[in-house]
């Protein structure tokens, strides 16, 4: 089963194509990293996959052929958007109840236990939590739904290194325990090196490369995903580049 399948998918906003001719099939059972510079179309692709945006061209289905955004698709996908928006005036406990009421399934026991482990008080308002705790709370709300596909948009962008590590640890625990498929976007490549086993490289609204991490590395004779991505993003034809000391932000150019 493919967790996401896109055929000639395109989206344009005000005359420019944010995503164009995107054809893609991500098989289930992977932690897939969607990588590319800012403005490459990562968020657009994720919004289309979770049904927040409607395609301008082509089609996208999830979880084995369910139209993105359909009730069946929403039932199996949990999405944590960029900057992990939560209702700041609600307590963590209220947010758990809210999410339970908005979904057919919600594992309240798991969610409570998870927040307990993280030391997030149930009575505290979400707006009073630290950035890392808010991200963990949003992730807990998503994982409590027991999704088959977890979609994360730039989950690490605004977190400090410790929070990044903790966040990814929670994701990987769920992957190990539950077999949930994950699709996450990031421009922070180093963080994904250890966790991602599938890579989609997006640039200028188009898929440049997609496949299992091991296969891609072997084919291009690269040691790591970061190296591989940088080589590709620097321009076609360039196969080897020194990447030491490169800031990820430079990838954007």
């Amino acid at each position, binding site marked *: 089963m493919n967790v996401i399948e896109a055929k000639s998918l395109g989206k344009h906003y005000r005359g420019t194509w944010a995503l164009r001719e995107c054809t893609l099939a991500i098989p289930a059972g992977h932690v897939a990293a969607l990588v590319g510079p800012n403005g490459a179309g990562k968020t657009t692709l994720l*919004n289309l996959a*979770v*049904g*927040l*945006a*409607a395609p301008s061209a082509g089609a996208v289905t999830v979880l*084995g052929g*369910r139209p993105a955004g*359909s*009730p*069946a698709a*929403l*039932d*199996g*996908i*949990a*999405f944590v*958007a960029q*900057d992990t*928006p*939560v*209702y*700041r005036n*609600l307590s963590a406990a*209220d947010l758990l*109840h*809210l*999410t339970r*009421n*908005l*979904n*057919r*399934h*919600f*594992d*309240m*026991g*798991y969610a409570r236990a998870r927040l307990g482990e993280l030391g997030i008080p149930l009575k505290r308002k979400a707006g009073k939590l630290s950035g890392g705790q808010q991200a963990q709370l*949003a992730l807990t*709300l998503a994982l409590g*739904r*027991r999704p*088959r596909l977890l979609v994360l948009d730039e989950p690490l962008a605004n977190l400090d290194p410790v929070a990044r590590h903790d966040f990814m640890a929670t994701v990987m625990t769920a992957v190990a325990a539950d077999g949930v498929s994950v699709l996450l976007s990031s421009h922070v490549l180093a963080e994904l090196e250890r966790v991602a086993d599938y890579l989609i490289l997006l640039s200028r609204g188009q898929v440049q490369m997609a496949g299992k991490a091991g296969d891609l590395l072997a084919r291009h004779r690269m040691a790591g995903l970061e190296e591989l991505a940088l080589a590709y993003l620097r321009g076609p034809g360039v196969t080897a580049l020194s990447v030491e000391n490169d800031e990820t932000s430079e990838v954007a150019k």
Partner: protein
Amino acid sequence: MTALAISARPGNDTALRPVPWRRMAWVTWRQHRSTLAGVAGLLGALAAYLLFTGLPMHHAYAALAACHPAGSMACSNAIVDFDNVHWSMAEAMAVLLQVVPALIGAFCVAPVLARELETGTFRYAWTQGFGRARWTLAKIAPLAVTVAAAAGAFSVLFSWYFAPFADQGLQTRLPPLAPLVFDLHGVAFAAWTLAACSIGALAGMLIRRVVPAIAATMAAWAGLALAAGLFLRQHYLTPLVAHTPNLPGSAWLISSWYTGRNGKPLSQAAISRFLQGYHPVAQQAGPNSTRTTVDPVGYIAQHGYQYWVSYQPGSRFWPFQWIEGGYLLGLSALLIAATIWLVRHRAA
């Protein structure tokens, strides 16, 4: 929840049973209870004020009605006193209440979608299993209906409060169709509140910012209310026409004009010229040189002119209420449907 329910996962069948509506009741209540409390506080404070000032006013009015002998100097003076003491307060209250539906719609419903879109929480809410079109309906409709019902209950109290000023005996009586009070009585107040809420819902979705959406809601509502009060309402039913200056006090005067001998309407200038010839006390040349007073109506009639009025009789109060309530209900349904359509088709 049992362990079985926890591990249960959607199968490949696409015909899932949707999340039941009643689950949204908790969500809507939890997220909007403070707004509802605000509406309850506003209407409650206004109701308390109406009761506080209305009870003494009704006592005074009862004394007035019992005044005996009616028509005596003492009773006439009592009526003037009543008008002086109570009218300005009641009038100010009626003016103030005109804006209440707009306030409720703008502050209670306009932020519902605008805040989600402004803070980005719609990315959470609209990707939950409930589905965003149903989510929108389950938020907007109960909120709008609840506050409109509260407004309706409040307007019953206002009708009681204002009842003395419908009395024909008072100088400050107002016909029930008068623009100042028509939309505060009957079903109109609730209907205008519902309309303000649906305008707010659509404005929130279109504008996506809380403060501008509130401002736009008030502006759009004011435009609609002014259009209805100044231009539309008088045409709900064809006005009656009469050639008498003495309309019953319950009638709502729409317009008046003169016709000349040929039966054609006269221009304002022609009427002015003609009326310059009128003197309340006319000299009548004759052997006895008597003086007779000529009333204006008689003077007009003598010269073959006629004074015409078009008006809406007071008996049309309820038909007008249902007409106004009906089209506002239709408009509200349309605006909420448009909002849901936009949520479904124009997100992110």
